[in-house]
């Protein structure tokens, strides 16, 4: 493991270097590539800082959907959940479906915050109303 600064801090500093010293000086394809690199670093930083906690929370939420033990392997738990949804084991309009939607929404919101929080903000701003035609 690295001493301080850790991986997340290094990524943050690299992003700042790109932002402050590179992005303003490049155009066209180079700018597009630099923007993508900065975005990838921001996502990786968010994953390093919060990914493990998010995975733990998601596993706990999936475990909470079942009465029987689910195990501690998140990938296997997700697999099982996907299969059970497809098999319609969370019937529409039931409390079980409500709990499922809570779990899915929480995990998806956490991921979206890490990947594109601006999209989330736009989405919430747009919640006001769609036009009636």
């Amino acid at each position, binding site marked *: 493991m690295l001493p301080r600064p850790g991986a997340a801090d290094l990524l943050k500093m690299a992003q700042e270097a790109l932002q402050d010293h590179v992005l303003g000086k490049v155009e066209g394809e180079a700018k597009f590539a630099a923007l993508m690199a900065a975005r990838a670093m921001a996502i990786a930083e968010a994953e390093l800082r919060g990914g493990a906690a998010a995975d733990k929370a998601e596993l706990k939420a999936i475990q909470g959907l079942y009465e029987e033990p689910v195990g501690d392997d998140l990938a296997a738990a997700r697999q099982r959940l996907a299969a059970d949804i*497809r098999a319609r084991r969370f019937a529409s309009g039931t409390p079980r479906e409500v709990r499922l939607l809570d779990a899915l929404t929480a995990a*998806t919101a956490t991921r979206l915050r890490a990947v594109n929080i601006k999209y989330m903000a*736009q989405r919430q701003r747009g919640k006001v109303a769609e036009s009636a035609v």
Partner: protein
Amino acid sequence: MTLADPEAIAAFIARSAGASDAAVTVVGRLAGGAIQDNWAVNVEIADGPMAGLHEAVLRTDAVSGIAESWPRAQEFALISAAYEMGVTVPQPLWLEPTGDVIGRPFYIMRRVKGVAQGRRVLRGLEPEQGDVLVRRLGLELSKLHAVVPTDKLSASLAFLPEVGLDLIVQRAAHYRKSLDALPEPHPVLEYAINRMEDLAPPVTRLALCHRDFRTGNYMVDGGRLTGILDFEFAGWSDPYEDLGWFCARCWRFGATENEAGGVGSRAAFYAGYAEGTGRPVDDARVRYWEAVAPIRWAIVALQQGERHASGQEPSLDLALTGLRAIECEYDLLSDLPKMTRGA
């Protein structure tokens, strides 16, 4: 990156155009094709019926593609059908389907002026141009939707898979199969596909649909439409799928208040379409297809991400595209649980 063998391309064009000679100058590679490579080329034809200079685009397959995308020969037939129906598309010129000339099939179409990239389109519009543009796009879409499976024109489209009025059941099965081909499970998409089936309105009419009709896939110059692009996903479908796709939030490029493609009002878009069909737009059906649109975009995004993750085509752009599935999942969870059948 360069375009292989302009001389061989020129010889092919001369043969196709009934000319004694032709010359091709490569202007440059065009941005934006994740599944195809597009090259701006200038073609000088020495004689014959098409003698003269033609500004054109050569479109060929990228290194790797995704399963749902039509190869170039089929895309050429689709764009030709649209052109015959009077849809504003770049005029299709010549198809080389064998791959013998440059190692990959390609076709050439007339180059149209303007920009296509979504955010650039939005930035370039004056406020009063948005509604005019989406009204025109609605009208254009109605022309494409005039092609139905029993048409004479549809003979050239015999390669399109038949679909029935149970289209949504077929679509759900296809999506599940697509998810099974991906390495990771996607519980949100599984939920959304169930809802798509449960909320399905009756499909009453099938027509030739673009199936990627959205901002980003048409060219605009000075606020005016110059050409509808990218027929690689086209096929028989419920025409309302195209209207819903155009209005879907994931294709508004941040301008969520402009419900028609981030560009103009829903009312103007519907008005253009109704003008072309002579029938009012059924808003509930548009809203249904709009709400389920992120399922398809999520699957395509995941497939794009997998092109990178599998090592087939390492690309940061493709890797980041894969992550866009999360935006779709968030939209699906925001819209589908509260939606009711027919609303």
